[in-house]
């Protein structure tokens, strides 16, 4: 379904990004794996993709640095010859109560989770406009819609991503580029493993489907948005959250 397409997935060494990279490869895409720090894990993902018979490579890059992002996108286009799918997934958390939140905690999260999406989107747009086609998929979060105590920085960034998604969708629609967001609910990853049992129990009560999500749930949604079947959707935020926020 995605044969011959090239995808770039940011933050793809683990968690949701890793699952998305693997799913896109399963559907036929060649996938560039971006990582910030976990080189060994990124290499494992690339090896797994190559074992499926697709092409893959790893690229270290801090998505909040515009020069590095430009270089990364150039490298991907040079190596694969096209860039059809961008998954803006890289993200960090620096949780703290608003009153205790340090300026640095705020800036770090906004820079990676929001500015990073802007920079990567801007960098791929040139190629996608020339191709007259492209799919940009931003991984937001359900808390960007609902709010969440202790995550003012993260929530602000994710709500920002949802707004950015809508604007980019409107600007780029005439050039055949769709831009959508996915808002995952509680998905079991390294990021959520850090939460206490007490918090997890409380969250479970808010999920109508009464279970936590798996990174695969997000991966198949991203693959759908990247596929031919998703071609009439743009500017949307899909809630993949077991019904948490309706």
């Amino acid at each position, binding site marked *: 379904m995605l044969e011959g397409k090239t995808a770039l997935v940011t933050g793809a060494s683990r968690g949701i990004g890793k699952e998305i990279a693997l799913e896109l490869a399963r559907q036929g895409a060649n996938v560039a794996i971006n990582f910030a720090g976990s080189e060994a894990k990124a290499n494992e993902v690339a090896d797994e993709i190559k074992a499926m018979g697709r092409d893959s490579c790893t690229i270290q890059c801090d998505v909040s640095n515009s020069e590095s992002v430009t270089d990364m996108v150039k490298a991907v286009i040079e190596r694969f010859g096209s860039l059809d799918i961008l998954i803006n997934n890289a993200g960090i958390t620096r949780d703290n109560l608003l009153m205790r939140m340090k300026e640095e905690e705020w800036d770090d999260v906004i820079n990676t989770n929001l500015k990073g999406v802007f920079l990567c989107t801007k960098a791929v747009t*040139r190629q996608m*406009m020339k191709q007259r086609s492209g799919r940009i998929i931003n991984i937001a979060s359900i808390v960007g819609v609902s709010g969440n105590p202790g995550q003012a920085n993260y929530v602000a960034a994710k709500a920002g991503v949802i707004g950015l998604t809508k604007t980019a969708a409107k*600007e780029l629609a*005439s*050039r055949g580029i769709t831009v959508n967001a996915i808002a995952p609910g509680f998905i079991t990853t390294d990021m959520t493993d850090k939460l206490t049992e007490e918090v997890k129990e409380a969250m479970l009560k808010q999920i109508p489907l009464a279970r936590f999500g798996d990174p695969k749930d997000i991966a198949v949604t991203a693959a759908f948005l990247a596929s031919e079947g998703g071609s009439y959707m743009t500017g949307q935020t899909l809630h993949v959250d077991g019904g948490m926020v309706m």
Partner: protein
Amino acid sequence: MAEVLERVTKIIVDRLGVEESEVKLEASFKEDLGADSLDVVELVMELEDEFGMEISDDDAEKIVTVGDAVSYIQSTM
């Protein structure tokens, strides 16, 4: 001069679907040639490819007319 104008004109005619006779040096891309903001961004991208140069965002914003594009390209050649 003539050669640059000729190459620039061809790109504008292809991209904006206007008549060659409309592409005058004083013609504004947006006012006279029916381009929207995104068309101008794309034109600049094509000029970069055609002439093998990089036009910074600051410089690109100053390119309003056909003449602006031609003289910018000539100044960097």
